């Protein structure tokens, strides 16, 4: 007869599941904001370079 398991079957705690759901919701929100062009100026920086952009600035703008 086999010994009983030393530990109960592995289960993911509820707080980890809640944390995972929150992270997924935030990630989806960020993607939606980015796709709709409302990601806190992310697109605007790249699409509308200032007139006095230097070489260094160009690297940022084409990021």
């Amino acid at each position, binding site marked *: 007869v*086999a*010994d*009983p*398991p*030393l*530990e109960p079957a*592995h289960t*993911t*705690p509820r*707080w*980890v599941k809640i*944390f995972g759901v929150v992270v997924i919701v935030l990630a989806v929100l960020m993607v939606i904001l980015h796709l709709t062009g409302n990601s*806190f*100026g*992310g697109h*605007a*920086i790249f699409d509308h370079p*200032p007139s*006095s952009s*230097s070489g*260094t*600035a160009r*690297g*940022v703008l084409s*990021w």
Partner: protein
Amino acid sequence: VTPSLRLFMLTAHILSSVGLLGAIAAFLALSITGLTSQDALTVRGVYLAMDLIARLVIVPLAFAALLTGVVQSLGTPWGLFRHYWVLLKLLLTVFATTVLLLKMELIRYVANRAASTTLSSADLHDARLQLVVHAAGGLLVLLVPVVLSVYKPRGMTRYGARKLREQRVLSQSHVRVRLGLSRPKRTLAPINGQGS
């Protein structure tokens, strides 16, 4: 790992982590000032200071927190991948450090522009707003590891549970050997909880 070395690493980890939070809080205050101030000299000084703080304080502290955290976890029974709270701390710190490194170019760019020209409130508004948002986001993300460190919520990963089982089987076999109930050769073999 000796107890004194473990204590030293814990102290270094707390100092670097809490210092990182303080530095990002200062960075956030400066970024809000840079976005809202109408005084050109203040704006220039703010973005130059932000560049210095990011390069000389925030980035080194982020790597120090990451390194001391990894060393600390490996030198204690908590391990790095055995408990969910330790694993989440690692993932959050790596994520925050990665985003920080990605934004360093933007910080440098705004500082260079502030140094070379007089920024009006409309100049680089989106970039300056991004700095505020990322500083606030970074602060919020890095508050989570602090909470996890204090509360240490229960929960072992699959890997941690397996390691614990292995350790218990080993310790049980050692007890049996000491009591003369069995020979070590028979009791050390199984590690999956199915042994005799």
